[in-house]
């Protein structure tokens, strides 16, 4: 745990204010079936087409825990190195709303499945995070999602869609350890990355698979925590950061104008980037939590826990460390490549294909593959825009290009050109190189012939070079390459020129 404090401050009339942030992230568990019923969980289905008798809370219906949802939550807990509670229990949170068929949500207040854990956000100087920082996670509990009200279907009535009713959520509750919007943003991104690595949540914030309740308070540095507000259901990293910026400023202005912050629930308006009051503590519900008598306590045995642990993949921090230590990548490149499941999967696939093609160890091609993956390939893709068909961006094709480049058959520029054609057409890289003449000349005879011509045409410069003007070497290289229409193998050109000029 580092003690480095963020330098992020709100500048008020009475001086500087520190922001204290805690996040409750609701992550939908990846599972085919709901937490307590067999109904499907796929997104985007027709309203009320994925509702079982249990989800609709018909008389006499009973919840039965879905083992897979519990397993995913336990694996997530293990991924943040949290304490897994072998004994946990479900509680009912009672309140009336039309999207809550049972009249209660089955959740875990008193004995959550996962206890204390932590995750590390990486240093990011530009964002004001001077060094790696550990953010405490208080608990993860599992609970049911509610349905959805639709107010725009009928002039005077609201409709209820229960497809999401009963879907399993993990509520991941952080400690109030964050001190800036950037830290909160980094936390959400890191958490999402871990969830996606583990495969316990798809992390899709647009579809609502992941959303955050943002707790914000302000204080003078060194003071006790101030009164916090909770802004509900914020559904993107950017909105989380905006919520904090707005809420912190609002609270500072309020306090400095002589007011007090009230503990309340607020809503974020993405249109204006502001928050507004939803309900205050006075009219907060009394949820009357009590243990759900339809369910026995959840007891996890050794075999179950062992399976959960064994099924965990290599996680972002470990992977990053391995990329640096075993593949020799820079910490920065390793960090970017491991930040997301998609990017590391693409990288590792390409690394394997390239090293197989060249018959070299992964470490020997890792820098080339990393540079290609992080800058060359995305650059080509972006430049092409809609002309590119990403389906053509196979590891096989890219490895073929990298192998040709590595063998000196094509130049870096030719590699890009070939990849462009691959993305547009899906043609074979070797065939493109051949057909389009995108190969560089390594034949020493041909290159020597061109060098001889260049030297003959520039006898004055040759004399100057030989007289000690070393800088002219680049000129000869440029002239030779130009004469060869850019297709000369630069290494060979350099070597031969050196020999002829110095010899």
């Amino acid at each position, binding site marked *: 745990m580092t003690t480095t404090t963020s330098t992020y401050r709100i500048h008020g009339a009475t001086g500087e204010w520190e922001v204290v942030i805690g996040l409750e992230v609701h992550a939908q568990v990846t599972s085919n079936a709901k937490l307590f019923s067999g109904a499907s969980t796929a997104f985007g289905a027709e309203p009320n087409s994925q509702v079982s008798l249990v989800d609709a809370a*018909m008389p006499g219906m009973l919840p039965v825990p879905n083992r897979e949802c519990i397993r995913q939550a336990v694996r997530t807990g293990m991924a943040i190195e949290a304490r897994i509670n072998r004994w946990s229990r479900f509680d009912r949170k009672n309140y009336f709303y039309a999207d809550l068929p049972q009249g209660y949500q089955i959740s875990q207040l008193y004995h959550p499945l996962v206890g204390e854990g932590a995750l590390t956000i990486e240093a990011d100087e530009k964002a004001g995070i001077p060094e790696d920082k550990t953010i405490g996670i208080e608990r993860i509990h599992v609970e049911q999602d509610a349905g959805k009200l639709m107010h725009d279907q009928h002039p005077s009535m609201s409709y209820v869609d229960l497809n999401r009713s009963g879907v399993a959520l993990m509520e991941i509750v952080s400690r109030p350890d964050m001190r800036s919007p950037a830290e909160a943003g980094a936390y959400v991104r890191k958490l999402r990355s871990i969830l996606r690595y583990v495969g316990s949540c798809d992390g899709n914030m647009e579809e609502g698979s992941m959303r955050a309740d943002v707790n914000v308070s302000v204080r003078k540095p060194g003071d006790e925590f101030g009164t916090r507000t909770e802004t509900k259901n914020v559904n993107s990293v950017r909105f989380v950061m905006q919520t904090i910026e707005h809420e912190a400023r609002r609270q500072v202005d309020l306090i400095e104008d002589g007011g007090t912050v009230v503990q309340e629930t607020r809503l974020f308006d993405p249109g204006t980037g502001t928050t507004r009051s939803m309900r205050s503590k006075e009219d907060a519900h009394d949820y009357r939590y009590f243990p759900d008598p339809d369910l026995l306590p959840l007891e996890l045995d050794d075999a179950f826990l062992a399976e959960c642990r064994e099924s965990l993949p290599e996680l972002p921090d470990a992977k990053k460390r391995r990329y640096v230590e075993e593949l020799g990548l820079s910490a920065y490149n390793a960090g970017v490549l491991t930040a997301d499941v998609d990017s590391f999967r693409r990288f590792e696939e390409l690394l394997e294909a390239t090293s197989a093609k060249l018959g070299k160890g992964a470490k020997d091609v890792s820098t080339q593959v990393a540079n290609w993956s992080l800058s060359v390939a995305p650059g080509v893709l972006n430049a092409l825009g809609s002309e590119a068909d990403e389906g053509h961006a196979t590891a096989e094709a890219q490895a073929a290009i990298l192998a040709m480049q590595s063998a000196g058959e094509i130049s870096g520029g030719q590699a890009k050109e070939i990849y462009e054609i691959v993305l547009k057409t899906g043609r074979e890289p070797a065939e493109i190189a051949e057909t389009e003449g995108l190969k560089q000349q390594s034949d020493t005879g041909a290159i020597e012939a061109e060098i001889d011509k260049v030297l003959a045409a520039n006898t004055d410069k040759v004399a100057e070079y030989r007289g000690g003007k070393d800088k002219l070497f680049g000129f000869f290289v440029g002239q030779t390459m130009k004469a060869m229409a850019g297709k000369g193998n630069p290494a060979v050109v350099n070597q031969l020129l050196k020999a002829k000029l110095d010899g």
Partner: protein
Amino acid sequence: MSDLTDLGVAAIRDGVSSGQFSAREVAEAFNANVAAAQDALNAFIVATPEKALEAADAVDAARAKGEQLGKMAGVPIGMKDLFATKGVQTTAASHILEGFVPEYESTVSANLWRAGAGMLGKLNMDQFAMGSSNETSYFGNVISPWRTSDGGNAALAPGGSSGGSSAAVAARLCPAATGTDTGGSIRQPAAFVGISGIKPTYGRCSRWGVVAFASSLDQAGPMARDVTDCAIMLEAMAGFDPKDATSLNLPVPEWAANLSDDLRGKRVGIPREYRMDGTDPEILASWDQGIEWLKDAGAEVIEVSLPHTKYALPAYYIVAPAEASSNLARYDGVRYGLRDLPQGANLQEMYAATRAAGFGEEVKRRILIGTYVLSAGFYDAYYNQAQRVRTLIARDFEQAFETCDVILAPTTPTASFALGDKVDDPLAMYLNDVFAVPASLAGLPAMSVPAGLNAQGLPLGLQLIGKAFDEQGVLNAGLAIERRAGFTARPDRWW
């Protein structure tokens, strides 16, 4: 043909399978009794004579083809209206579920139909199983078929909440019926009308498809004329159900085949704390008689102590309403059942109007109690404290069962009373279950068997409480009493 309705489960099943009479004849006979008694006893909310005939015909056809018949083959039964029955209105005797027709069949009722039973109808009961006299039903009181022997014709309580079940079995409207017992709702009505009823160990019978009252206590069981019939029917009802997370994953024993009234080597515990002030002397006398019968059957009788007994009723009236207040939240007018939507009402107003109109007074009282004991600031003092008491009561039984095999106690503190007597005094009504509630809180099997009649000619029951999973011990002790009590009294038909 009317004599067929004097037969019980075993006699009907055996008669049908041996061809003495057809299942259809049996169903017709009971259908006729149901119809004839409806106005006077109001035991059924809905009669389903066609269902009874359909099931009977299936059994007769199966027999004709020489197929193996089920445990309940050809036995028409009454189904308490707490069990969801596919295609047949299921209301829990409430207005809020009036007209609700489930698309699904409860596990227990499905088990019974699979065993060859047929349905005579849905039995009246106390609303949401809350009540001890069957006076809380939205569909009117059930009238006990019993009357006092002094010639009085006051309408008597059949007990509750399974009051339709008890009245129907006692009046020969069905040979057996399902009941549910949360805090005595099988045993107390069985005692009031002179029949047998067993609440098995919590988890023996699936709660799936049974309208919930208090989930941690609710348990279904059979109500029938004798112990053997109870054993047969319980075998058909019980069994592990993966759809109920609290269901016991144990095989169903062959209780009926293993019935024995030979209690030699068994110890019967007599709980000292059940000798409460105010208990009817006739009840105490029947208890003493029960002790003698069990001794006669070979048992050794010892005194045991259940020291926390006096806290059982208060704890029960916290735990059960707390769970009920949450379980009944789903009746909100949004998806099914009654909806009262006053002109211009918003969602909260619709909830209030619907629930005000849909729930009866006793149900509202328990929702209020339950809501109160779970509220912030009261939770620890009430709900948590009651749960601790519950643990102590379970421990009382565990300790008692270290020295005895089964416990004998009265089922109720009094015999049946006149309808209206206690309806304005909830506490007096709740006291009816004072002997029944401890076994419910501990989840133990317990049954009531008829012991005799009091001076007014009304039945008295004796209760047997067993170790968890030991329904056999309870049934055997019940059988020993049944054989010695020789209880043959039945209400004279006045309806």
